[in-house]
């Protein structure tokens, strides 16, 4: 790099105490202290919430959490109340929403990643005219914000989609009948988990295809050719060769997508339609944050229950998660 060469030559004249160990030690010491202070600052808010979730209502409302050690009043009751529900403040148990979130997040992670891997393979390794155009169009669709799709998708799920009188996409409220045979059973998308999986899958695809394509396209060509020579068709090559080799890339995107869906509020709010049967945890927590105004002991415990699974996922799979982030934004 020429700019680099320029800078190093110009810096010849400003030679300073470059190999002074004391100075190095001090600077790394100062950096350590600075990082320590910032990391502490960053943790205090969550720590306060955590402490408060184990204090009694009286203690939480009468004293700051930082005085918890001098005003000890510990209890597990808050967690019992929020998790099991049944009290006046929290009728429906919070585990109900935890399971809802799982039921939303697991399929909304598996489905888009599978479809994206398939698409990425086709774009990268099945030669066809316009594959580059398809790739960039899909990638470019990231510009369409979620917000643009909310109303049209809602009406699609409840009424199907038709131009004039011609039905392009039917609703499956009465199932699907082809040539007099019931092919699909009656199924209402609106009000079902599928109403949340589908938007998540659709919104995830552009980025998923892009990231997974980057990985799959970089696999060695000899591998594909060898597989072909062995008599494998594209499907066998995809499932036996490409997928196993792509596990690291798929895993890192899976974690990313899992946390994204788990933490999403807008899609859940829009497509759950306020139904306790499918409403995700984030939506419930947002509701509680308004309705439990004076019950900090319950709100803090609820917030911690909501954070638990993403925190477990995050801390146990942190390495993959970071790798997934980097795949998107750092050139390697």
């Amino acid at each position: 790099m020429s700019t680099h060469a320029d800078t190093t030559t110009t810096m010849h004249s400003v030679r300073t105490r470059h190999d002074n160990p004391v100075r190095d030690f001090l600077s790394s010491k100062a950096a350590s202290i600075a990082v320590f202070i910032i990391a502490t600052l960053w943790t205090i808010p969550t720590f306060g919430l955590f402490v408060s979730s184990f204090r009694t209502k009286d203690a939480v409302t009468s004293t700051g959490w930082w005085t918890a050690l001098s005003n000890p009043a510990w209890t597990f009751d808050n967690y019992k109340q929020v998790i099991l529900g049944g009290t006046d403040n929290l009728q429906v148990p919070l585990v109900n929403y935890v399971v809802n979130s799982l039921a939303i997040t697991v399929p909304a992670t598996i489905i888009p990643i599978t479809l994206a891997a398939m698409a990425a393979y086709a774009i990268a390794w099945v030669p066809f005219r316009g594959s580059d155009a398809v790739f960039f169009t899909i990638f470019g669709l990231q510009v369409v914000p979620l917000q643009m799709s909310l109303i049209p998708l809602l009406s699609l799920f409840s009424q199907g989609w038709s131009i004039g009188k011609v039905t392009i996409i039917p609703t499956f409220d009465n199932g699907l009948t082809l040539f007099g045979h019931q092919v699909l059973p009656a199924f209402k998308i609106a009000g079902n988990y599928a109403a949340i999986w589908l938007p998540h899958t659709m919104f995830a695809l552009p980025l998923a295809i892009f990231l997974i394509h980057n990985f799959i396209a970089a696999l060695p060509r000899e591998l594909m050719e060898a597989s072909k020579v062995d008599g494998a068709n594209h499907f066998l090559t995809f499932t036996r060769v490409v997928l196993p080799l792509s596990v690291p890339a798929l895993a890192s995107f899976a974690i990313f997508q899992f946390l994204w869906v788990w933490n999403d509020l807008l899609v859940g709010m829009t497509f759950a339609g306020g139904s306790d049967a499918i409403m995700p945890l984030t939506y419930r927590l947002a509701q509680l944050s308004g309705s439990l105004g004076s019950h900090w002991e319950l709100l803090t415990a609820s917030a911690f229950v909501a954070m638990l699974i993403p925190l477990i996922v995050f801390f146990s799979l942190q390495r993959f998660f970071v790798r997934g982030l980097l795949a998107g934004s750092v050139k390697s």
Partner: protein
Amino acid sequence: MTTTNAWSDVWSQLVPKFGQILFSIALFAAVLVIAFWLASRARGKAERPVVVTLMLGPAIVLVAIGLVVPGLQTILFSVRDPYGQGFVGLQNFGWAFTDPGMRQTLTNTVLWIVLAPILSTGIGLLLAVLVDRIKREALAKALIFMPMAISFVGASVVWKFVYQYAGPGNPQIGLLSSIVMAFGVKNPPNWMLTQPLNTFLLMVIYIWVQTGFAMVVLSAAIKAVPMDINEAASLDGATGFRLFRTITMPMVRGTFVVVLTTAMVATLKLFDIVRTMTGGNFGTSVLANEMYSQTFVQFNSGHGAALAVILFIGVTPMIWYNVRSLRKERTIR
């Protein structure tokens, strides 16, 4: 009622839901296996079209139904009345730029896009540089990165507790109020009602979440700077800020810009924090929140769609920029 439900009752309600999860995943897998099996019988000339259709088709159909068609429909809605019927020209856009409430919303949005990404990416860069110089960085990194995992809603509850207000004479349980009282302020304000301070306090939440992301990505970029460049520079006497300015910064500039634009897109679409903290009241509303309110609270699909289109127009140049730098990168390879 004051007693909680019994575990067994709660549990029995949940079992069917687990069944539903497993069933749907099994169904998805079965459909794929059958489709692959059927399609792999195609031979000769038919093979390639069948493969492309089956493997690329589902993604294209979903993206078309979920993004392309709705995008066009929303553009049509944006020039229609509140019920999506009569054509009203650009009235909805006129409203968006002249209504006093909307002016406030747009001003807030601009403040957000300018301040929050710069601060979070800047602090993230500072941390990345600092972390690069210390020995045991993993724990500090994990702690600063953690808010990223807990959702904006969770983060909002965390900070709601920090910003908790108590009237004079009541015990202060909010951390922020207690801190300013320690500095001699007698009656701390009700933070979330104090304009325009409240918008900045909401930005703190965003920065708290986003900084860890910026730090991790930039830290990786810094580590990717070849050792010998750093060594050569320090042999030439470059240390500290000088090394940063002349070597590190030019090398990570590309990543910095990507993180910054990603954050800008995210703030433009920002919804969760504002929704959970204030619901957009007290002069804190932003574009994406107002879009939701207009559509699902006021039931004015014309206004809502116009705001979505404005959002789209705002996001496009930033993503366009990222696509372009990606294309450049591709041709270099």
